[in-house]
């Protein structure tokens, strides 16, 4: 286990807090569903777990891959759909 990850963790949290300070309210929902899709990155861990040997780990991993994929695909697609509806007078 790599304690350096703690360093990355703290820096990434700080970066995240700095990155998204002023968000217009019309973007609140897309920001939420879009960032939610990013949290589906846990799919990487799920793939590793599901592909390794051991029955229980494989079962848990496969369910995890399914759930994470729903999170990723559903999150990106629904965000894209929502953002497609936001129009300014120019494009309308």
């Amino acid at each position: 286990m790599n304690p350096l990850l703690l360093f990355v963790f703290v820096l990434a949290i700080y970066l995240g807090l700095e990155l998204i300070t002023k968000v217009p309210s019309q973007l609140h929902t897309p920001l939420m569903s879009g960032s939610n899709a990013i949290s589906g990155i846990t799919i990487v861990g799920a793939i590793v777990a599901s592909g390794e040997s051991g029955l229980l780990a494989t079962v848990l991993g496969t369910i995890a891959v399914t759930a994470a994929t729903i999170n990723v695909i559903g999150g990106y697609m629904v965000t894209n759909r929502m953002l497609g509806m936001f129009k300014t007078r120019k494009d309308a």
Partner: protein
Amino acid sequence: MEAWQTFAYIAASILFITGLKMLGRAETAKRGNAVSAVGMLIAVVATLLAGGLDYTWILVGLVVGTSIGAIAARRVQMTEMPEMVALLNGSGGLASMLVGWAEYVRADGVVTFSAVAIVLTVLVGGLAASGSVIAFAKLSGRIDGKPFLFKGQKVLNAAILALALLAGLVVALDAALVGGVTGVTVAFGVVLILALVLGVLAVIPIGGADMPIVVSLLNSYSGVAAAMAGFVIDNNVLVVAGSLVGASGLILTTIMCKAMNRSLANVLFGGFGATVSAGGAAAQGEVKPLTPEDAYFILEAANSVVFVPGYGMAVAQAQHVVKELADQLTKNGAEVRHAIHPVAGRMPGHMNVLLAEANVPYEQLVEPEDVNPAMETVDVAIVIGANDVVNPAAKEDPSSPLWGMPIIEVDRARTCFVLKRSMNPGFSGVDNALFLKDNTRMIFGDAKATITAMVAAFKES
């Protein structure tokens, strides 16, 4: 880890950061979402190509998950977005929890640091998963949206959290000393179950009007769970991406709390509205009902109209007729705006999404601080299914639970129409003095039917 894989994960992390930044600005949001999706694709492909994996079950999971996710994203109604976001949060939290569990099963004699990470992954992931399911059930009306409170609730929650942490400590310490013993397995099972129980207990005391805060907080949790899973499998990209989501969810949560002038602790433990019916002076005045036909004559003469939508607009699916009425008013020469309170509806930005669906131009959407200063010049403010966010008690009555909350001050408009089914108070259970003000006219009935009647009156003239 191979060097190329590290590079791929770095690229993915940069794309997530860039994408998230672009998602925060209207002009770049759509591209930002695509950028972050490319990052995800790179991360997944790099993981699949790492070798040493049996692909059979991975493929099954990917195919099933893609089908469910794609169908849900295409079919979901915009009015159901809060439920959709809750479910997506839940599946992310569940996945992280299972990753932690699977790693626990796989690891014989894990070192303490990993065991701590596994326990935290399971705890936060499980909490996000079951909490999201309860939030979904409340939002979709499958269970009562009112706060569910009982005596000693806070004590019980604190005790369960303490017990979960204690069991987690047993897992972490014992794993370092001896590795997989029956006692440790039992302790791990306790952590797993208590995490799910905590998620349920954390969300049931929270009322409908506070849902925007809960939904964004659960979003934050699912990110933190993914970051913890990154510690478990020793992977930077999970830590970076998870932390970013955790931070952005926290920012949204803070914005929501500020919009209600309440602290996070007050929302999480408050059970707002369940205990307040006694507070607040009784409002004076009488209800002045109006028919949609009479409302037409006032609207016809108006030069400036502000719509104030709330959750009731979503329930009545009235966003399309609102757009129609707005078009009629514009054609009639009136200036039309839609004032959106940050916590109107059941999730952050709920009303914006619905009005965007109805093709309301972005320029007509304004925030409370944009309309409040010149509210006296507004001829008609039309409140559609909003309640607490227009309640004047927030600035007039220090004993009201809403006291201090920034509101849209429609009571200062020349005339205020309130479209409502009945005189029942809003989700918070607080009476609304707005309904009894001299310049307020109540238009009872289904909001969609009422507005349709107004549009018809415009078309006939």
